[in-house]
């Protein structure tokens, strides 16, 4: 079931980013291109991280850029990028290699996306994901481990 979230339209591998802000911009731009968020969303995520610290880094190696629905979310959606060069967040030792951005329109409709993310972390798939370069492989990896 989780194997159906990612397509050629919302996934990019080996993205080059200058720093965490640039990585968030690039990750969130896939949400925007798919009509999930408006152009404010990325800067709202960055603003939130500046204000609250890197709460989007939920486990070593993975960040999940997101902000509140009223900050530019249009529909529930998700995107995934892997970073060519891992990037650092202030105060966090392990660099981030995988970014899964999402948008939510209320507190519950994105439940399945969160479940998928938790499964990726709990199954230790972050390193595997950072090393693959096809959407098929990605979906097989996520799909297999969650069925």
């Amino acid at each position, binding site marked *: 079931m989780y194997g159906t979230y990612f397509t050629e339209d919302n996934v990019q591998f080996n993205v080059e980013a200058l720093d965490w802000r640039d990585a968030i911009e690039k990750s969130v731009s896939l949400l925007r291109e798919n009509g999930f968020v408006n152009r404010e969303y990325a800067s709202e995520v960055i603003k939130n991280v500046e204000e609250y*610290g890197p709460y989007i880094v939920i486990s070593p190696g993975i960040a999940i850029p997101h902000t*509140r629905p009223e900050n530019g979310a249009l529909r529930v959606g998700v995107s995934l990028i892997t970073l060519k060069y891992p990037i650092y967040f202030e105060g966090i030792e392990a660099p981030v290699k995988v970014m899964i951005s999402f948008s939510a329109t209320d507190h519950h409709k994105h439940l399945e996306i*969160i479940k998928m993310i938790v499964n990726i972390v709990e199954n230790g798939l972050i390193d595997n994901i950072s090393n693959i370069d096809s959407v098929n492989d990605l979906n097989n990896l996520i799909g297999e481990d969650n069925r």
Partner: protein
Amino acid sequence: MLNILVVCGAGLGSSFACQMSVEAVLQDLGVKASVDHSDISSAAGSRADIIISGKNFESQFMRYDLPMELIFLDRLVDKNEIKEKLVPVLEAIGKL
């Protein structure tokens, strides 16, 4: 009923993910509780028995004089860390 609130910046992603791990740990421990998630601005008025949040929020929580137990995590979805920090708190308030 024991009430646990998981808190992050936006109150719908990191805290929601953490809530799932907390629920899994509570199930392992056989402790019944109602777990919810929210953003930090609504956390101050919460009546939860325990608040769980990320390390990066610790200083912000310290500005308020909150009556409930506070737990801060390095890794929001690490069940081992959650269990390690939650068990002593549950014991202290007589829920375990």
